[in-house]
């Protein structure tokens, strides 16, 4: 399927004298990881469909610094943060949306003190607001009646108390949401946070993503919904580990909405 995605950059917008409604912060995963790029594109398709005026930084975007900060490298984090803040402030960015809860948390909570004050929202919150404002309609389509379980990303849920937006969107898809025994504030981490994504785990009896995948499998889902590119990777690996990749899909909320409508 050849598709035309409309993805203006801030630089292009500026040259036309325009200011977008919102900046889409793509993040490293969303830019480079093959699996996460699909989430990025699904989200863009929805933005295009809803006629949202947005732009990306493109090659001017750089790592938010989250993995460096969580690994303990405050220098590198603040270097990244201040460089990004210079770019964002130069474009007079007011509102940012991102599909990565780690970028979301860092931009929202840790940038303000360093001079980067923006309204930051996660893509599930943004999609929910589009829906509430009547700018987006959601139908179940191919997913109607399917059984789904939602894995709360730590940096969205516990870290920032966003539990309902992704669930509200799932409800709109007419899917049967089954909660795992550990969900919302009690949700179990996928194992990727705190820079774990980039290293091997310490010696133990099990991998965290396998433990979490078992939680999800207990609900006998057709689909495991994620709202974080890292969680998505971890859960996808977990499903492969359990040899269930034929039966169960791991999809981002944005992909569910885009795919339901064949966007």
């Amino acid at each position, binding site marked *: 399927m050849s598709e035309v995605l409309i993805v203006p950059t801030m630089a292009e917008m500026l040259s036309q004298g325009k200011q977008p409604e919102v900046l889409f912060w793509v993040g490293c995963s969303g830019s480079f990881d093959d699996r996460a*790029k699909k989430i990025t594109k699904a989200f863009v398709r929805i933005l295009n469909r809803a006629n949202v005026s947005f732009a990306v930084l493109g090659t001017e975007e750089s790592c938010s610094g989250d993995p460096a900060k969580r690994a*303990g*490298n*405050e220098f590198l984090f603040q270097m990244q943060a201040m460089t990004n803040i210079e770019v964002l402030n130069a474009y007079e960015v007011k509102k940012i949306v991102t599909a990565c809860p780690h970028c979301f948390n860092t931009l929202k909570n840790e940038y303000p003190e360093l001079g980067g004050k923006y309204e930051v929202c996660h893509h599930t919150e943004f999609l929910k607001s589009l829906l509430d404002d009547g700018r987006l309609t959601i139908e179940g389509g191919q997913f109607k009646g399917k059984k789904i379980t939602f894995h709360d990303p730590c940096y969205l849920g516990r870290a920032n108390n966003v539990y309902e937006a992704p669930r509200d969107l799932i409800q709109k898809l007419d899917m049967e949401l089954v909660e795992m025994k550990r969900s919302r504030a009690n949700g*179990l981490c996928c194992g990727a946070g705190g820079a774990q994504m*980039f290293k091997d785990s*310490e010696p133990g009896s099990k991998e*965290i993503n396998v433990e979490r995948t078992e939680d999800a499998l207990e609900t006998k889902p057709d689909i495991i919904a994620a709202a974080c590119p890292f969680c998505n990777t971890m859960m996808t690996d977990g499903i492969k580990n359990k040899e269930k990749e034929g039966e169960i899909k791991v999809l981002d909320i944005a992909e569910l909405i885009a795919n339901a409508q064949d966007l």
Partner: protein
Amino acid sequence: MGYLDNILFAILLILGFGYFYANIKKIVRNINLGADVNRKDNPKARLKNMALIALGQSKMVKRPVAGILHIIVYAGFIIINIELLEIIIDGLFGTHRVFASLGTTYDVLIGSFEILALLVLVAVSTFWTRRNIIRLKRFANKDLAGFPKNDANYILYFEVVLMSLFLLMNASDLHLQNIPGGFSHFIKAGSFPVSQFIEPLFNGVSSDFVMLLNELFWWLHIIGILIFMNYLYFSKHLHILLAFPNTYFADLNPKGQLDNLESVTNEVKMMMDPNADPYAAAPVNENAVPSKFGASDIQDLNWVQLMNAYTCTECGRCTSACPANITGKKLSPRKIMMATRDRIEEVGKNIDSNKGIFVPDNKSLLNDYITPEELWACTSCNACVEECPVNISPLSIIMDMRRYLVMEQSAAPTPINAMMTNIENNGAPWQYNQQDRLNWKNEN
């Protein structure tokens, strides 16, 4: 009671409260070994936290069985202590049941104390069973090997003894009250819904002996309370006091927000300012100890983190929710808190025995108490912070220690170093060129 009793009682009180005060002073001094951190903003939100979480036990009931039983013991502890006021006045002035003049109110009070005392006995027995018979995973955990396990049981035994003495005291009192025509100073006062069933024990015992027993129970009860109070400092049980300041001074920011190190901000700003003259940096106080990035010992942590360590009652909810611990890694958030307290105590003793000055002992919190393996197993998921019924943050200590490992010792695991090099060189944790950041747009 003659004067001797009153004097003896006063001395006992002074000793009990005096020793307690000395230990409280020691705890305050030790907590102040930590670095400063401003937690005085937004008093309204802080008071609300304290009211809901410490006083209202809102996070305890997330695990209903332990939560509700704990509320019983907690209510028992607070309410029965009203009785302590009467005991102290009686003891000092030689009165007997001085509040009896309250009439019906007094009956209701004593009656409800008795019911609470019984409920406490039931709750404490259940706690003991959970620890020693059912052996819940978080109590059978190796974190608690040795003294911590016994400590937890001692506390339970204390409660049983204190509650039993209270009921026995009332039962013997009731027995003497019921003697036809009255006996000595035992006026009819109070209602005894529980101890009336113990009272028949004294049938057939001489009244004088029952009075002796009554006085013995009374003395043992107050002595027991004083011992319990002074045991607190040596036990994991300080939370009954520290839960209040601990919830008041807890971090109010979203859990995901990690503090930005100010010392780093200043350096990064200078590095990024093209007009900055690196040699123009104002000469700082030469006697000042150069600040360390991150924490390798307790003095590098802030005072709230140190108070967290004293507040921890080792319930292990954090560890039972920790993804690393659940999957068999060495990390246990509870152990992080216990290790921090052990090290604070060690430093405190060092200061005590060196005339108020800490003499370096070639030890540190890092390595001697907490290993890098534990620190690197953390996913920063905040499950431990969410779980803690009194808002302790083991995560903040883990993060500060990682900062030390990385910024002072360059001791990150190799793949972490690679990730950081990538961010430095090409603005992403992987080896992709920043110029390719928008390539996804045209890929199918």
